[in-house]
């Protein structure tokens, strides 16, 4: 099958479920960035995010038959990525204590672009300091633009828990990033 962007996801998924690797390859290209972004924002490490992204697609291939066409492929693939990212972080916890991630002090760079970098680094550090499940909810909502219902499905939690985790994440980030929010 050609990996043309004109092929709708469902067509590629059906072909992949039938064993067509080139169709699956097209899905890999189409969702690579999404999966990588979710992994990166969750773990904050490029190499680890790349590994998680690859493993996500391998797992997806192995479990393709459990995907139902009436479901959301985006949500399904994000769910695999999220679970793998959480597993990876659990394994890494003894080596990388997230509270040890430095929070860059504001106002250290005179140039505007340096300030922008500082702010981005501060955001990154603050996100990595969030509790793992709170962080996942924030990443999916704030960066991937998922609805509360989608986040609930991806993380397999009730809608109320999504709201409380987002509220908690924003409260914590609001406190930590206050110096960067006035620009």
């Amino acid at each position, binding site marked *: 099958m050609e990996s043309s962007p004109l092929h709708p996801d469902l067509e590629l998924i059906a072909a992949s479920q039938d064993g067509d690797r080139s169709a699956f*390859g097209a899905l890999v290209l189409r969702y690579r960035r999404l999966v990588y972004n979710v992994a990166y924002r969750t773990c904050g490490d490029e190499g680890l*995010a790349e590994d998680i992204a690859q493993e996500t697609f*391998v797992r997806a291939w*192995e479990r393709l*038959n459990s995907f139902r066409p009436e479901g959301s492929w985006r949500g399904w693939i994000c769910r695999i990525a999220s679970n793998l990212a959480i597993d990876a972080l659990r394994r890494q916890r003894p080596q990388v204590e997230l509270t040890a991630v430095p929070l860059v002090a504001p106002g250290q760079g005179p140039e505007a672009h340096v300030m*922008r970098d500082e702010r*981005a680094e501060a955001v990154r550090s603050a996100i990595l300091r969030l509790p793992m499940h709170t962080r996942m909810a924030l990443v999916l909502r704030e*960066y991937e633009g998922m609805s509360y219902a989608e986040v609930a499905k991806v993380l397999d939690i009730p809608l109320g828990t999504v709201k409380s985790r*987002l509220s908690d994440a924003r409260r914590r980030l609001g406190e930590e990033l206050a110096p960067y929010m006035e620009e």
Partner: protein
Amino acid sequence: MDHVGHLLGSYHDNELPEGTRRLVEEHVRTCPRCHAELSQLEALSRALASYTAPDPVSSAQQFQSQVILRLSRRGRAAPATSGWLYLVPLALSCVMVGLLALFALPGLLGAARVLVEWAGITPMSLVELSTAIPISKETVGTVLDVGGLAWEAVLYAALLLVFASYAGWVGVLWRVQARSQSGKES
């Protein structure tokens, strides 16, 4: 209206029903405290947006190739329709056991009756069962609505059908697995 702090997150995320959304909107316009809280949420979103993920380490093509290579090592997706195929032998086995039981039951009951009589025991239940349900070729023939020995032919035909179905199932499964093995490397 009371403060709507608990609704501001959902309002900011556009997750409120229309009626509630309008109420919150009107309230925020006149309430400095809730207005400030909403502004904080918006400022936080802007700050979060400044954090963009870097490009992945490998190019899109490299990434795709690496994933496909790993698929070869880790196995392939089984075809979506193969799940029910594994129930076929179970169903066929049940049919075969049923048919064999139909063959064997009269003989077994007879043998059991001879045995208990030989042993001098007369368990009432067995005696009652064998007299109350006198299973015999004639009985089975009546049930199947065929006369004389024709029931045997029916049973043999049924067994043949079961074996033919089993062979057919094995053929289908073999084809499905062969198709999966080929991997459709188009």
